[in-house]
């Protein structure tokens, strides 16, 4: 007889529920760590209290009744104060959820409270997933699902034991009143809090059947697979609405990528090696040899850095409504360029979107409001994104040259007519200019307070020979000059002294970082009368061979210069930082092979993250259609290959049949045919009976005995045959066959007649019956 497995009693099920509830609470609460929501106090309390109360449930029982009475009002008051103080609804709601979660984890729970716990935990997990769009969400939601389903299973089994009644009274505060514990259910679970976790897990191991556990794991895998199928198959249609929760949360921004950059800000970003941007490019050969991702243009020197002037800030125009697709007119030059760049921009970096240069079309997955600056070729989100932003860029220039016809016209006017430099734009029409320069030009302002510093700059410009041969040439000479005086270093030590720090650095021979080189070049160019501006963003990136994408990290943050070249009527990228190419080369693309290659586990994880963004986060109606088309093409190709193979086989067979038939060939075919027929006959006559007998002898269960199963089938067949009238002449054969089949089916093996003979007899009986009926 099979050994019976033990079963969990009611107390053990109760302990399991308690453990799973604590686990769910802890797992879900910890997801908030990813969110940068200021909830460290609540999280700290949960991290300490929930494990302690979970491991020692007696503490929960010992909580005074007044604690339960006051818990909810206190939490509500705290939430109201939180809203009033912070004015941020979503973080306050998350903190409220965490407080409720904490209370549910440490207070005694019944079925209803367990459900509340699951719902609270689900809210936290989903909201965190929505805001972080992190690949960790997959692990979180799967862990949560597994734990929640286990908890619900334990709840159902407990209810099965208690006859569907509540495990504990509805109100936890009343739970400990002695008169309520008189119920048989309460008696059955009394003492559950005296738990020995080692014993419980030992019992669980004893109770678990390996096959059932494997089946459970298989079913869970099936759930995951089904979820994937449903995710891919759920019909997608566009409802032009945005994700309103975005507005309920704010995120801090990096100062290096904000409107005001002081020296060292960009260097500080470089200390961070986390991923800032992932780029999927449709044609990897279009990747430039030295990619630059522009984010922000700063024109006004502040004395300790650069900032965006009000004039430039005014050039950012907002789109009237939120749209999926934002197009530009006359920005890009590579209209025939079919390369598509999909950027996955991480949260917490900046609200300015990294772009290679001018572009023709910018597409978002969700309707998105956007501020675009036509003269700067930049795009900016209205607020700092709280989650990863994915956007597709088409027709993007990556050669470091930005044409600006308006600025060229403006420049021509100002150069040809000195009066234009001093007249306000609204009065330009009085002087005969139909289209006056509309912008407040600051690209030539030095912003230096001390005349000595200006004089020093002019002296250096004179040393460099001025800018008579154009901005590009001057940039090359000035950058070379800077590089000859300074080496590159992330740390800069400049002694305290009077005067502008940038000029003092230029005067010294101290090493410097990219912001100083870029700032120095801007000042030299402006002093020489060449418009220049400072740009921050990212330079370079690494090729991830796992995902086939570019990974740009915060450590790739960089600052460089853009200098106006009158001959080209364009802004030229000029990078004075040592080790960089000062101005762009004519053949800028070298493909992904020019990039550094990532390897190791981080590359694999980043690859997985790109897959997550590419296939999951960015999955939309187009992707669904693409998937459908791909599946259809693959199925069609497979059917075609099968059809081709079958046709080939048939053709070969036809050729074989058509070929001349000689005696050896006929003999060979006849031998094969007779051999086959003989084998079938032998199998039916001897082999099958032997095989069945062998399996029957090895079978240890009546239920799986093939002889008994076969006898059962024949008995059923006889029964069906006998439903209609049975002629007299066939009755005896049927009776005899049935009697022998019954012996096979229920009798001891030792008393069995030969099974094969019995089955033949049954077959003959059925045939005899059919013949007898036919005769009538």
């Amino acid at each position, binding site marked *: 007889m099979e050994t019976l497995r033990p079963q969990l009693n009611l107390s053990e099920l109760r302990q399991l529920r308690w453990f799973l509830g604590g686990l769910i609470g802890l797992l879900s609460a910890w997801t908030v760590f990813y969110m940068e929501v200021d909830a460290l106090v609540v999280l700290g309390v949960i991290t300490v209290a929930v494990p302690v109360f979970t491991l020692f449930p007696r503490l929960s029982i010992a909580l005074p009744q007044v604690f339960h009475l006051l818990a909810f009002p206190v939490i509500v008051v705290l939430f109201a104060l939180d809203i009033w103080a912070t004015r941020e609804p979503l973080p306050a709601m998350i903190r409220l959820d965490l407080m409720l979660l904490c209370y549910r984890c440490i207070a005694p729970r019944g079925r209803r409270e367990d459900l509340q716990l699951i719902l609270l935990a689900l809210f936290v997990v989903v909201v965190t997933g929505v805001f972080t769009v992190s690949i960790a969400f997959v692990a979180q939601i799967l862990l949560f699902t597994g734990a929640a389903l286990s908890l619900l299973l334990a709840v159902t089994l407990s209810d099965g034991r208690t006859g569907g009644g509540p495990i504990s009274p509805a109100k936890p505060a009343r739970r400990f009143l002695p008169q309520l514990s008189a119920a048989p259910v309460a008696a059955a679970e009394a003492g559950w809090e005296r738990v020995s976790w080692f014993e419980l897990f030992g019992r669980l191991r004893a109770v678990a059947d390996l096959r059932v556990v494997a089946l459970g794991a298989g079913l869970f895998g099936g759930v995951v697979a089904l979820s994937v199928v449903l995710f891919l198959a759920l019909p997608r249609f566009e409802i032009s609405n945005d994700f309103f929760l975005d507005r309920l949360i704010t995120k801090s921004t990096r100062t290096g990528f904000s409107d005001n950059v002081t020296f060292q800000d960009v260097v500080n970003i470089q200390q961070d090696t986390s991923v800032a941007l992932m780029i999927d490019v449709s044609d990897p050969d279009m990747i430039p040899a030295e990619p630059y991702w522009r984010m922000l243009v700063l024109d006004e020197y502040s004395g300790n850095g650069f900032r965006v002037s009000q004039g430039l800030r005014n050039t950012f125009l907002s789109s009237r409504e939120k749209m999926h697709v934002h197009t530009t007119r006359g920005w890009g030059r590579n209209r025939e360029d079919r390369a598509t760049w999909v950027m996955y921009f991480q949260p917490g970096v900046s609200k300015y979107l990294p772009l290679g240069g001018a572009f023709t079309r910018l597409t978002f997955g969700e309707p998105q409001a956007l501020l675009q600056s036509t003269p700067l070729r930049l795009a900016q989100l209205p607020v700092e994104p709280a989650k990863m932003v994915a956007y597709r860029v088409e027709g993007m220039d990556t050669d470091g040259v930005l044409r600006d016809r308006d600025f060229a016209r403006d420049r021509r006017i100002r150069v040809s007519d000195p009066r234009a430099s001093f007249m306000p734009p609204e009065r330009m029409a009085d002087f005969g200019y139909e289209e006056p320069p509309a912008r407040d030009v600051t690209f030539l302002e030095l912003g230096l307070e001390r005349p000595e510093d200006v004089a020093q700059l002019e002296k250096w410009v004179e040393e460099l020979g001025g800018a008579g041969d154009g901005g590009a040439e001057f940039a090359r000479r000035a950058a070379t000059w800077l590089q000859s005086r300074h080496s590159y270093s992330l740390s800069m030590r400049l002694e305290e002294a009077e005067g502008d720090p940038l000029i003092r650095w230029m005067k010294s021979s101290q090493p410097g970082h990219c912001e100083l080189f870029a700032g120095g070049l801007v000042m030299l160019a402006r002093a020489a009368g060449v418009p220049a501006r400072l740009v921050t963003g990212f330079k370079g990136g690494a090729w991830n061979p796992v995902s086939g994408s570019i990974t740009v990290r915060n450590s790739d943050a960089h600052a460089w210069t853009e200098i106006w070249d009158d001959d080209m009527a364009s802004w030229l990228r000029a990078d004075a930082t040592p080790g960089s190419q000062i101005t762009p080369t004519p053949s800028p693309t070298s493909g992904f092979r020019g990039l550094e290659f990532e390897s190791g586990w981080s590359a694999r994880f980043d690859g997985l993250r790109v897959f997550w963004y590419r296939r999951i986060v960015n999955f939309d109606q187009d992707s669904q259609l693409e998937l459908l088309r791909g599946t259809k093409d693959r199925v069609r190709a497979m059917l075609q290959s099968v059809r081709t193979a079958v046709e080939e086989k048939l053709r070969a067979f036809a050729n074989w049949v058509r070929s001349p038939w000689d005696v050896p060939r006929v003999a060979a075919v006849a031998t094969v045919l007779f051999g086959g027929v003989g084998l079938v006959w032998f199998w039916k006559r001897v082999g099958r009976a032997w095989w069945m007998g062998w399996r029957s002898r090895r079978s240890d269960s009546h239920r*799986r005995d093939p002889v008994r199963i076969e006898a059962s089938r024949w008995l059923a067949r006889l029964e069906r045959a006998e439903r209609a009238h049975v002629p007299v002449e066939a009755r005896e054969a049927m009776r005899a066959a049935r009697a022998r089949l019954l012996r096979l089916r229920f009798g001891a093996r030792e008393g069995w007649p030969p099974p094969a003979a019995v089955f033949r007899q049954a077959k003959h009986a059925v045939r005899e019956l059919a013949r007898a009926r036919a005769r009538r």
Partner: protein
Amino acid sequence: MITQPITTPVPALPATASVQDEPSVPGATEWQGPWAASRRRRERRWSTLLWALLYPPRGHRIIPTITGVLLIAVSLGIGTAAYNTANNILFITLSLLLSCLILSGVMSWLNLRGIAWRLHAAGPWRAGQTQTVALELRNAKVLLPTYGLWFDLAAGDAAERRHLGIRLDPESSTRIEWPAKAARRGLLRVELRGVGSLFPFGFLHKSVASDLAREVLVWPASVDYRRHLGGAAWRAAPSQGEVNRPGHGADLLALRRYVPGDSPRLVHWKATARLRQILVRQFAAEGLEGFTLQVGSDSAVWSRPEQFELGLGLAATLAEDLFKQERLQAVMIDDEPPQSVRRLRDVESFLDRLALLEAVERPARVVPEGIPQLHGLVGPRRVLRILPHGARGVAAFLDGNIAASA
């Protein structure tokens, strides 16, 4: 009360065995349930199965529980948010929730698959006494256990939901017992009204209607009565001789097979040696002067129904007691001729008839003054007649005197 059924191994049956092939058990109904149905339904096609999944068979109901409604509401909310925002994280969550709902259905189906049950309610019962109704459960699955079933049992007006509190392992069976009490005599319908389950996650309340029922006969209730006549009439007096009934007299009645518990002194060694099996002597009962018990059903006599019920209870109790004392010679109902009582079966037949006896109107007859109207009172001697006594009581009259009352 929490039922703790006993798990016993399943009787050996081939996998394709039909439930009708099993020998019938007295007091048990035939097997019912998904396993039994699948055994009966020979043709098993995928289309049938799929159709059954879409349109459950008659009596099968799936109703979402509060948890299920909550899950559906959460799914709807997340689905609305997902479509409104095109956010794929929400689509993933929605997919997972829907998958959980589907998993719940699949596991629920697996849980019920291979389950068969039958009802044991052996009669007859006694009104007012607790009897055990047993439900035999069988899990014919090879791999999977079954959890969390409940059974809605009913006996007359009484109904109760009994839970399978334990895990029913594969290829095993168990019994769920329900102590039921019949309120009144007559035919009592013991039935299994439905089987349900919340397994696995409590999202869906799955129930299968059942028409499994068994009618049991309920004998009149046993009543406390008081004997009269100073004990003289009741005293046992030897009769003419032995009676043809097993007992403790001196005359040999028959030989029978030895059963455990028989005294070795009763072994008939010669017969045992001759037939090569142990045989014991069975003696005839001593003949005592007995009684004939008579019950009438004239509604004119039994004007109060509760008095009639009490009278039947007294009759049944007296019949049992007298039979135990081996002093019940015959029984009579109304005008019928007396039926002699020799075996236990005779008493049981009498009680069976009492269980179904109804007070009916009969043609009036002239009876001696002072004695209530009876029919067919001629014939046997020492007749104990059950008649109303007073406003609420009943009595057994012997020769016009009260012999017992209740």
